[in-house]
């Protein structure tokens, strides 16, 4: 039995992306975005962003290549989550030794949210004894969190609540989920499809974000949105798009709630709620003020 005041989740610890052209995406992740490329096993190319062995991996394997890894607080928490998920109608199974090896973890529950986004609940993700040393000075300090596309917002919220996440704020129906002291580590964006919306990496300062925004312009990389500041969390962000529509983000300065009890706030889904500075996303409907359906996008 877990002590009642211990959280079930400790962190969002990795994101695995299945890409059509893994080599091009890998080049983007290291040479443009600036992560440290470290290892390649079974066609899964791994990248570091901090002291962990890897926080991002890119593969061509569509069947078991994509997932978001969240770290259970302990082995006991993993056992408890196994039951909680089942009791709430979320099927899951223990990962095989091979699957754990691929994920660089000791144990894992393989499950998925109501939309079908694969989620690995893991224990003891592998750390590295050597410090993080990237090839480009983008100022990345750590993997920060993810944005997920949600086809079934109510079901997905139930899924993440089962794992112990709480809603910090709403912008329209976008839910910002808290699992530790920070405003959010996971954000659910209502969408017509499932999938990873973005993987966010924290940088040291605003300077890094602004430098990267000019770096991206010079290298003709598409900036999806930003530089901007998210009013709900105070976080400064820059979302950039690599090959295959993969969005990686630099973030900095998220508000720390630090365990303070706080009521969930509701903001309207307007440009001002999504960016305090005035940046807008024109091509990614999940990030824009007007959520348009795929169909109306096609018609335009």
């Amino acid at each position: 039995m877990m002590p009642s005041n211990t959280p079930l989740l400790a962190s969002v610890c990795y994101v695995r992306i299945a890409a059509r052209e893994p080599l091009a995406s890998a080049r983007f992740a290291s040479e443009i975005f600036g992560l440290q490329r470290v290892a390649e096993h079974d066609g899964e190319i791994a990248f570091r962003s901090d002291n962990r062995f890897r926080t991002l991996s890119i593969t061509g394997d569509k069947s078991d290549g994509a997932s978001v890894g969240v770290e259970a607080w302990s082995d006991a928490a993993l056992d408890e989550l196994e039951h909680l998920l089942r009791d709430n109608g979320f099927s899951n199974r223990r990962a095989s030794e091979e699957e754990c090896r691929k994920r660089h973890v000791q144990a894992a529950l393989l499950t998925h949210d109501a939309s079908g986004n694969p989620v690995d609940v893991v224990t003891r993700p592998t750390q590295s004894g050597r410090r993080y040393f990237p090839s480009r000075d983008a100022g990345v300090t750590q993997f920060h969190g993810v944005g997920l596309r949600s086809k079934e917002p109510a079901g997905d919220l139930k899924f993440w609540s089962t794992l112990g996440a709480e809603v910090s704020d709403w912008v329209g129906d976008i839910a910002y989920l808290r699992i530790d002291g920070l405003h959010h580590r996971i954000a659910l964006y209502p969408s017509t499809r499932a999938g990873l919306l973005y993987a966010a990496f924290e940088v040291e300062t605003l300077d890094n974000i602004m430098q990267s925004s000019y770096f991206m312009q010079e290298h003709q990389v598409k900036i999806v949105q930003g530089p901007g500041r998210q009013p709900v969390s105070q976080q400064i962000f820059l979302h950039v798009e690599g090959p295959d529509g993969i969005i990686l983000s630099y973030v900095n300065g998220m508000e720390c709630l630090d365990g303070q009890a706080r009521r969930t706030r509701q903001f309207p889904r307007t440009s001002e709620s999504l960016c305090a500075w005035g940046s807008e996303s024109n091509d990614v409907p999940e990030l824009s003020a007007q959520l348009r359906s795929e169909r109306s996008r096609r018609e335009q």
Partner: protein
Amino acid sequence: MINLKDVSYVRLGSPDLEAAETFATGCLGLEVAERGRKSIYLRSDERSHTLCYSEGDPKDQSVGFEVEDEEALQQAAASLEALKHHVRAGSAEDAEKRKVKAFIGFDDPSGNHIELVVRPERSGRRYFPTRDAGITGFSHIGLNSTNPARDERFWTQVCNARVSDRIGDIPLMRVNSIHHTIALVRAPRAGIQHVNHQVQTNDDVLRSFYFLSERRVPIVFGPGRHPTSGARFLYFKGPDGMVFEYSVGVDEIDDEGTHRARQFGFEPTSFCMWGAKPAGLALPDGR
């Protein structure tokens, strides 16, 4: 030694006062203090005005600096005349137009119209603009120089300016603890190169970037960050081609006795550490 306390105001000629007012209030974010028949006074802080547009030629530009009192003003006039600068005594009527107790005018070695003023007016009411640009006050000017080394000598030896940093041979000079109040810019002729207002936060700089871009105000440099003063900045073009700057986080020099001017190379990263490139703003020629 002429002891400059601070920069007080900028006076600009403009053929279209209405356009100047529209820009100053709707884009720049100043408050109209007073509207005359042929002039408009604008506020940016606790002072009665810091920018004045008068109907006229945009080449008519002058900058006012505050000196301590009328005695200091008389001494300044004497030392300028000893150096063969033609000093213009300010009439009572012209002093009233400038909202100062007394003033004199002269040209710096490049030919910039400089005014030294005593007791510039403050306002009892706080600055309250119609657009929330986050302005905290008029802070410094970029001044054209046909010979930066000569003009540096004028500002630092005849006046009390101190060089905080140099980019190439371009000096950034302070007259108080703020990193720079006068930035010389090499140019073929005299003129004000830019007018700076400080804003409260980074957010204000970036917000204005999107706000002004949307209104098709030409952004000529930034958003960026000067490695010299540490300030985050945005330069944009107003009426008659005048460039305005917002900045935040400019260093204060609090080790006056021991501060040594740093030398930066004459290259783009010395002007912006983020990688912004000037567009439509002539960077000074550093050689």
